[in-house]
């Protein structure tokens, strides 16, 4: 019988046969264990999308608290909505999903000024960031819908976006057996137009950003909110910069519609297309500003490439449209003050939100 161990004095690196067997068995056992720990099993749920995280100074409650009664926010609904959000089969050509224009890396906005849909068709507006919309009052740049459920179907059927009637999108999903259990778990039946929109809305509700340095500052944690950020915040909330008129502290959007002088004339009518009022020409919805540094370019048409350009445009008082809101006026800001404002705007970035794997396909 060969010795188990190499004899002392042997310089050979060759293992004895018995040791080789033991070693091989150990390696095999280790490999099996690793494989078992990384292979998803039917019993391992994905990380929860529905949490109690709430942005600072949002008093209405959690995303689940503010969800509508007829579409209560559940994990099953949110997970289903996430899968749909990234499913290109919801577009006529199979090229485009919601996630194509609402990119997680960019706070679910579009880094292109104007979004591109199927067959490279383009619209007229920049896809806005999807951040904290659970608390929103209206949606789209012109605020033409009041619920996320309504909003969810519009891009799907828009000819320059996904160009597919929502009924057909629902039929495609209903014909996909891999969706059947998810829809049954979430909405107690097969996919319908209504449940498809509701699921998408549920996922969007879970896109909650509440851990930026600004949020922490509002909660009393000043570790990442320094002097420049504080000076910037003071300016932001002062009559000198007057940002608060539309972007109040905490919520950072008053959910209103204003013409901030983005164009002079001949541009997108904006809110006027909804109300029909002459005075609403060029008014667009005030977006929330959390993660604004990640959601360039800016304005409804993506015409401002950087935050610096945004600050400069406001400092000029807009571009001179006669319909510019009277609260928009030239500002007297020093270069240092502009830098402080920018520091404050950058403090609204929630690094966890931007890389959160829960929000990725």
């Amino acid at each position: 019988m060969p010795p188990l161990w190499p004899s002392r004095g042997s310089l050979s690196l060759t293992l004895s046969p018995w040791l080789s067997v033991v070693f091989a068995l150990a390696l095999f056992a280790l490999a099996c264990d690793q494989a078992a720990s990384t292979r998803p099993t039917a019993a391992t749920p994905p990380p929860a999308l529905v949490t109690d995280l709430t942005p600072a100074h949002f008093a209405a409650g959690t995303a689940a608290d503010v969800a509508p009664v007829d579409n209560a926010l559940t994990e099953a609904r949110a997970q289903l909505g996430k899968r749909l959000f990234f499913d290109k089969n919801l577009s006529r050509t199979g090229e485009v999903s919601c996630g194509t224009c609402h990119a997680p890396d960019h706070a679910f906005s579009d880094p292109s000024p104007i979004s591109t849909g199927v067959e490279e068709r383009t619209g007229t507006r920049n896809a806005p960031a999807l951040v904290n919309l659970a608390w929103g009052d209206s949606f789209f740049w012109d605020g033409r819908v009041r619920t996320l459920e309504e909003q969810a179907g519009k891009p799907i059927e828009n000819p320059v976006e996904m160009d597919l009637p929502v009924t057909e999108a629902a039929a495609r999903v209903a014909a996909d057996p891999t969706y059947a259990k998810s829809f049954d778990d979430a909405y107690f039946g097969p996919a319908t137009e209504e449940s498809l929109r509701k699921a998408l809305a549920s996922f969007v509700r879970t896109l909650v950003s509440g851990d930026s340095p600004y949020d922490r500052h509002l909660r009393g944690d000043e570790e990442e909110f320094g002097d420049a950020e504080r000076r910037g915040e003071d300016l932001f909330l002062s009559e000198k910069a007057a940002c608060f008129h539309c972007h109040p502290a905490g919520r950072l959007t008053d959910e209103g519609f204003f013409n901030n002088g983005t164009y002079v004339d001949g541009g997108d009518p904006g809110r006027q297309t909804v109300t029909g009022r002459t005075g609403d020409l060029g008014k667009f919805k005030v977006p929330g500003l959390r993660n604004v540094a990640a959601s360039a370019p800016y304005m409804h048409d993506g015409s401002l490439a950087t935050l610096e350009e945004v600050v400069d445009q406001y400092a000029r008082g807009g571009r001179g449209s006669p319909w510019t809101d009277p609260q928009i006026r030239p500002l007297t800001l020093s270069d240092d003050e502009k830098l402080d404002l920018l520091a404050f705007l950058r403090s609204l970035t929630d690094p966890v939100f931007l890389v959160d794997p829960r929000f990725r396909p």
Partner: protein
Amino acid sequence: MCNKRPTVLRGVCLFSMLATASIGCMPAPEGGSAAGDAGASGGAGGPGTGGAGTGGIAGSVGGGLGGAAIDAGVSSAASACVESPPPLRPTGVIVEFPIEIALGGKTLVFGEPNALAAGGTLTPQDMRFYLSQAALLRGDGTSVPVDIVTQAGTPEPYGIHFFNGDDVASHTMRVLAPAGNYTAVTFLWGLTLACNQGDASQLHAPLSDTSQMTWPHLFGGYLFFKYGASIMQGLSDAGAPSAPQAAIPSLIHMGGSLTMNVAPAIQVNGMLTVLAGGSVVKIIRVVLDEVFKGAAMNVDLMDFVVPPGGGDEITLGERLRRSTSGLKIFVFGS
């Protein structure tokens, strides 16, 4: 109570621009303590507020009106800002006050160009204000506090009516009144001190941060009246621009104080007969001509400090607030 960096002038705190732990303080309006002209249908000394009846700080706002007494219930309610205030009375008659905005004798159409007498147009873009602490006056001068109510007759949140030009549903204020004959309706044009001290980020409509009425800091109170308009010059027959509409401002922001009740007390005179089981509708017009007159009034602003960077709209608002007692801003329509 002033903030950490108070500068006191005549016992009044300066408006501070700190984002945290800051308050804005405005001095009491001058002339606000005068009893109102019995025939006036505009600003006048009205019921006192702030829990002190007609005395003390409140007296500097309203000072009482011809001996009008204030109901203790109103005083205690004014000392708190309760989202669901208990009703003053379980039943009553809903009196509707549709509110119209008028200029040059004509009702303005919100969001549309309205022709100006001197040429050009005015397009109202923003018209928001709070009304609170409503009461009806009897012929003998007694004041009957009434709840500001919803269409269903329940007290409005915080007991406030919020007029928003953008929201047609808000264009009518309703009160729940006992049957009787009345000679006027009174209210505050703005908020009580208690409500003005609220944190908009923690409150609900119409005091939430989407009201578009918040001042620039978390504990800074609210605007009481906000007006914004696009004003276009007219053209002469020869096509040349007419004279600028110098007398018409495009922006007025009228606010209050974080330490005193300074909301103008308004009295609108006119007969109101409230019959049990009946309904009453009485139009109230907000006369912008008077608003603009007030905003341009030459009142003493020596103790008023405009916040750094603040525009003319704040000064105009303060002039307006201090001159309401001599103006007929709110009148009954025909």
